[in-house]
């Protein structure tokens, strides 16, 4: 981690990595979409509506993983004062919010034909909505500080406090009676899903995750570059 703590090193490393990751992301997204929309079978109960799963579930997984990465970065930022960690957290928050919103909306589009309702205040749906509010709240909070670094530190605290929501989301379908179905993939006994559906799901999940990494690298580069811009502006205003 210390190797990547140096901003210049991060810029060089991300510049070399991005073309390959982007190419791989495109290939996996294209394959995943073909598998999801064409090659995978309809469900015996849900028919073609089951295809919504191939965008809804990967969005949910990335929404949670993104927040997890923000939490880890917040620890690195607050405890070890890792110089990139605060900017990374700020950079990825909008991406996490986007995936969370996508998860919620595709969930509603799936719920209406299958359950007969767009929304229900069960533990799974409610806790994912809370996750969206945490993302948006974080962005509003850090944006309200004139002192940017102080804002990032306070934001990091918010992220860590909200981390308790992640196990709540995951175990909500076990701890409470929910309309949302229980886990069929991430289970101690292994997945209960057949391969013809599990493989498209996993391909889309990896594709979405890689896209998240690509966006994280691009957006962290942007934050670092803007920071350089601000520094130069301060120098110039001081009449260097």
């Amino acid at each position: 981690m210390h190797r990547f703590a140096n901003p210049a090193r991060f810029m060089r490393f991300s510049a070399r990595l991005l073309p390959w990751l982007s190419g791989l992301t495109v290939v996996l997204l294209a394959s995943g979409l073909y598998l999801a929309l064409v090659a995978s079978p309809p469900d015996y109960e849900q028919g073609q509506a089951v295809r919504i799963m191939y965008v809804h579930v990967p969005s949910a997984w990335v929404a949670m993983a993104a927040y997890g990465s923000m939490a880890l970065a917040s620890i690195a930022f607050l405890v070890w004062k890792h110089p990139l960690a605060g900017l990374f957290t700020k950079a990825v928050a909008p991406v996490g919010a986007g995936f969370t919103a996508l998860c919620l909306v595709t969930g509603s589009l799936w719920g209406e034909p299958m359950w007969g309702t767009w929304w229900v205040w069960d533990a799974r749906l409610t806790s994912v909505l809370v996750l969206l509010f945490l993302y948006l709240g974080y962005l509003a909070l850090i944006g309200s500080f004139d002192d940017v670094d102080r804002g990032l530190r306070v934001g990091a605290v918010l992220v860590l406090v909200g981390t308790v929501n992640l196990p709540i989301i995951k175990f909500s379908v076990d701890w409470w009676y929910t309309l949302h179905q229980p886990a069929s993939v991430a289970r101690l006994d292994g997945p209960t899903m057949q391969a013809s559906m599990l493989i498209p799901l996993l391909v889309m999940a990896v594709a979405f995750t890689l896209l998240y990494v690509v966006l994280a690298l691009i957006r962290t580069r942007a934050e670092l570059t803007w920071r350089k811009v601000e520094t130069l502006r301060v120098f110039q205003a001081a009449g260097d």
Partner: protein
Amino acid sequence: MAGFFEMGGYAPYVWGSYGLTVLVLAALIYLSIRRLRAAERMLSLLQQSRRSGGNDGSDA
């Protein structure tokens, strides 16, 4: 072929979901690249003005 678009009668739900997915992901990609390019342009401008003698009284 018709079945592909009709999605067993679930067309609005399935295509709505995939359409929104493409839109949201495309927007994230577009906005992120745009933000990075804007930062790079601004940095290059500032670095050029520093090299050409710094503060000359005009504010670009």
